[in-house]
């Protein structure tokens, strides 16, 4: 589906974030994408049951996170000498060999950001699902979108494969538990972000925030009325 360019001002107006084209967009059906007719930017890509799917997958990711990061990925066997390495160990080894900047970059992009992303996504989904969004939800979801690019688990996956091929001819390689957990973690992370319907989340958060404000106002109004009645009564 392509959005239509508009001439007059009507309802359902949106502006393409990539090329600033004024567009009229009808709410799309799940499974369809709406793209900008001029630059091809994806304006909306609704997903059915986005919140539930995203929540389930981010929780799966959180469970798989500790074993995937801390358990050894591979065991290397050279002439009977064995050596193992995990993702955490790779960042640590980098820092310990004196390359603290590179080590921190590895730590941030392959451990810290992926973890924070999963955690934030789970918390936001939970709050949206329960209808309890507040200012913290907005902040968390904004942080999630900001960090999105800086989690690089899939790049690390290819890195593991390159490492295996590099070492294949000089050592015996065994795949350990961490390797399989990492594949699970990677799948959960990729799927959770592909099921994420950002437009729906933002709309839902906005509606819930509005409701909260309205109920708060009602609450204060009620309190005032009760106070007045008490005063007049007393």
């Amino acid at each position, binding site marked *: 589906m392509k959005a239509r*360019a*508009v*001439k007059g*001002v009507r309802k359902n*107006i*949106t*502006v393409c*974030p*990539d*090329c*600033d*084209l*004024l567009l009229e967009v009808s709410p799309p059906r799940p499974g369809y994408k709406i793209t900008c007719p*001029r*630059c*091809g930017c994806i*304006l909306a890509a609704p997903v059915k049951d986005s919140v539930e799917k995203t929540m389930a997958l981010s929780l799966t990711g959180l469970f798989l996170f500790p074993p995937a990061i801390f358990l050894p*990925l*591979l065991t*290397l066997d*050279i002439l009977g*000498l064995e*050596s*193992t*390495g*995990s993702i955490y160990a*790779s*960042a*640590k*080894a*980098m820092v310990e*060999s004196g*390359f603290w*900047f*590179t080590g921190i*970059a*590895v730590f941030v*992009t*392959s451990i810290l950001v992926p973890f924070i992303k999963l955690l934030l996504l789970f918390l936001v989904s939970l709050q949206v699902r329960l209808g309890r969004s507040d*200012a913290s939800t*907005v902040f968390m*979801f*904004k942080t999630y*979108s*900001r960090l999105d*690019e*800086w989690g690089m688990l899939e*790049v*690390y996956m*290819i*890195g*593991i494969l*390159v*490492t295996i091929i*590099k*070492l294949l*001819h000089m050592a015996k390689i065994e795949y350990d538990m961490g390797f399989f957990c990492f594949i699970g973690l990677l799948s959960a992370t990729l799927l959770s972000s592909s099921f994420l319907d950002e437009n729906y989340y*933002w709309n839902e*958060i*906005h509606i819930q925030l509005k409701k909260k404000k309205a109920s708060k106002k009602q609450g204060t109004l009620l309190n005032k009325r009760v106070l007045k009645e008490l005063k007049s009564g007393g």
Partner: protein
Amino acid sequence: MGDKGKTERPKTGLEAGLMVCHECHKVVGIPSDGSSADCPRCASKVHPRKPNSLMHSWALVITSLILLFPANLLPIMKVEYMGAAEYSTIMDGIIYFFKEGSYGIGIIILVASILVPVFKIIGIMMILISIHFRIDSWLEHKTLMFRFIKFIGRWSMLDIFVIALLTALVDFGFLSTIAAAPAAPFFCGVVIATMLAAEVFDTRLIWDFPNDTICHHCHMNSDKK
């Protein structure tokens, strides 16, 4: 501009007095003085165009261009075997793979660690220069190229991850160890700087037509009738 040759083109948000929030994509009205406003949905500052986007992009692209030289010329990996240290640059590693006959992996590393950073820097520079000279052709292609640059940005970290993992795995004391070498932080710097350069760049600038009455520097519509 002669009205005769003027083809009708679709309206932009700027002309309609609307801007879109960069965080949550909510449409917000541009205040009368043309400055920023707070997004009613996500409370972030919304600007008609990202402020100083061109300047920031230039600064970061030039930074990455400078870092690119030490990243490629200095050795990036140190292999110690029986006490003898051997340093290799990124190119050495690729040549090694080609000599070994693993062409697939050689090509992956060649693309990820040499072609991608160079393409990213040249690509962003081309887009920035075309905006400076107000070239209004190939708009779609430029946008597509930018999207591609944004997508491939992270894949250059591949070599760094490989070295980090090798450092942890190949640690056999005197027999053999692998460690990073001086180019590694520079290489990280290239990746981070190019990713940031793409991040701060505002793609809408590509589409701001040169015959528009939009100020080139502050992106305000100066058309006051």
